[in-house]
């Protein structure tokens, strides 16, 4: 997976690149709009991350050129302004998602993965199994080691999200947005409590533990490496 990052703020650019590379992506970095425009138009990328505010050619212009050239590469906007207008403008011009600065890197990573997955063939299994945890999606039932686990519908939705994105670290804000449609910074404590209650049902009585807290980042559901 090859990504293009267009960002003129040096520190942000370096850390975004480093973070994405450590997450296993190949990253090209353009530090100004002109280079970014050139790279975006000439190379083939799986995803473009664009800063809106660039000193020369701004992000709007780049995404416009891309769309006019018929390139459907997913574009994620980074914007310092959270204005609704910016958001609407970006989405109208053909951007696929946006993130308001300051953002958490885990949030960026999660969004990047979502966008990249969107392009690939839709994956709607009826059944997800992780270690001895089994999710029966059509019947919305979960079993662990053969035991039926009683979950509320939201708890099931939360578990399903974690399971579908097995191994990925999901930040609290993404969980709030995907499970409860809360698209703004709310009491992040709510997610911690919800995860704790889910854990009590899924993990407390069983081994190995599947739901893990990644400090400062979020939560992930994964089976320990079978060795």
């Amino acid at each position, binding site marked *: 997976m090859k990504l293009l990052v267009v960002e003129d703020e040096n520190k942000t650019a370096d850390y975004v690149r480093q973070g994405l590379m450590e997450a296993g992506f190949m990253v090209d970095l353009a530090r100004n709009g002109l280079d970014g425009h050139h790279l975006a138009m000439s190379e083939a990328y799986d995803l473009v991350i664009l800063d809106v505010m660039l000193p020369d050619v701004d992000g709007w212009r780049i995404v416009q050129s891309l769309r006019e050239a018929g390139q459907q590469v997913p574009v994620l906007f980074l914007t310092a*302004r*959270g*204005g*609704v*207008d910016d958001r609407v403008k970006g989405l109208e011009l053909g951007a696929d998602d946006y993130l*308001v600065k*300051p953002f*958490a890197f885990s949030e960026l990573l999660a969004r990047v993965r979502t966008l990249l997955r969107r392009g690939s063939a839709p994956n709607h299994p009826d059944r997800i199994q992780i270690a001895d945890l089994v999710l029966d999606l059509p019947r919305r039932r979960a079993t662990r080691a053969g035991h039926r686990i009683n979950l*509320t519908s*939201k708890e099931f939705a939360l578990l399903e999200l974690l399971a579908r994105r097995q191994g990925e670290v999901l930040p609290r804000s993404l969980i*709030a947005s995907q499970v*409860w*449609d*809360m*698209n*703004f*910074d*709310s*009491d992040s*404590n*709510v997610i911690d*409590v*919800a995860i*704790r*209650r889910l854990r009590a049902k899924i993990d407390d009585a069983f081994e190995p533990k599947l739901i893990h807290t990644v*400090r*400062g980042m979020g939560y992930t559901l994964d089976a320990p490496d079978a060795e």
Partner: protein
Amino acid sequence: MPNRFTGTRRPASLALRVTALVGMATTLVFLAFSWIIVRSLEHHFAEQDAGELRAVADAVIKPLREAGRGVDGALLRRQLAGAVTGHHGVFYYVADTAGNTVYAGQGPNLSPIAAGGQPTARIDARELATWQEGGKSYRGAVLRVDGNAGLSGDPYIVAVAMDIDLHLSFLEEFKRMLWWATCIVLCIALLVAWLAVQWGHRPIRKVNARIRAIRSSQLDVRLNPREVPIELAELVASFNDMLGRIEDGFAQLSNFSADIAHELRTPVTNLTTQTQVALGQSRSAGEYREILYSNLEEFERMGRMIGDMLFLAQTENDPHNLHRVEVELGETVKGLFDYFEALAEDRNVSLHLQGRAGSIAADREMLRRALSNLLSNAIRHTPHGAAVTVRLSQDEERTVVSVENPGKKIPDEDLPRLFDRFYRVDPSRQRKGEGAGLGLAIVKSIVEAHGGEVRAASDDALTRFDVVLPRTS
């Protein structure tokens, strides 16, 4: 800065309006007055002339009456010539009914007057004829004199006239004088009116000078409404009100800046100290990780605070930037209950929805954010085992969403300040991860952007927050 008011025409100045009106009124009054005087003078002269003409006519008629039929023409002429004495500038002419001249005195030729005029029996001041001849003006009348019936005298036509140049020139002179007087009075009236307006506007200029002297550092000054004329008192009161609002806004703004500085100083100090101590000696990777995690938490909190402040600034700068859709309040609250369910159960707090309300036009995300802040706040302050109640009600004008929770009474003096940014009832709560103290400020800004208002009430048993939204806005 470009002038926003170019293109609109300035109305005429007050001084000009008042002066013009006074000038017009003075002129009209004076003209009417002059007209009346001139008319009465003319009338007076006509009466006077009529009296004189009557006397002349009587003197002329006397010999005519005494003469009988077939009187000697020469004798009659002599009698007529001597009939009038003691009168200057009067002329007369006598003819018989056939138009033959019986007597023609000196002066203007009166025969066309006698022939053309409609003879009357008596001289009336209102029916005198005036004409000009040879550069002089005359006033006169034509009389019909019946002959002496006893002497079977013939009827005669008598024309009498007098020179009225003297009267006319007097009138002309008088009119000119009146004209000048009018002009002078007009000038005086205009001048006085102008001075009066200037003097009358002095309080306005004084008020203006005081307003001009107000600087942002002294917004606490107020103009004294008792020092200005009654007409300006209301203006001064409105201005004072405006100044009060600006002062409040200013104070809030400068407090806000001070608060931001204060709120940011603490975490930045913590981070700096912690990092410096950490770098003071070499540590294990685990310890470094701990420090980074701790820093991360602090950074995230600061990031959230910045995000909240940006949101506040945007909502307040551009309150009309709402994406209004039909929002079903009941559904919205239930959705929020879903979200808070785990947290509430964890704290052994139950959530209830009471009442119902139709859908309203609102920005869905914003409204959810506001209600979510209120719910989160209520759950946090509800004792274990108690319940948070959301009550919906609606009438023709407004929709009210109340969020109630039992709990400790909020002191009355804190109630109005609850919605201020960074305001915390209990300052010691500040750094216990309970948010930056912007939650209720955000509620307020969202509700006000929707044209509504927020209220808080608290007694020993219950604390209630009301969101009042207008039905149409």
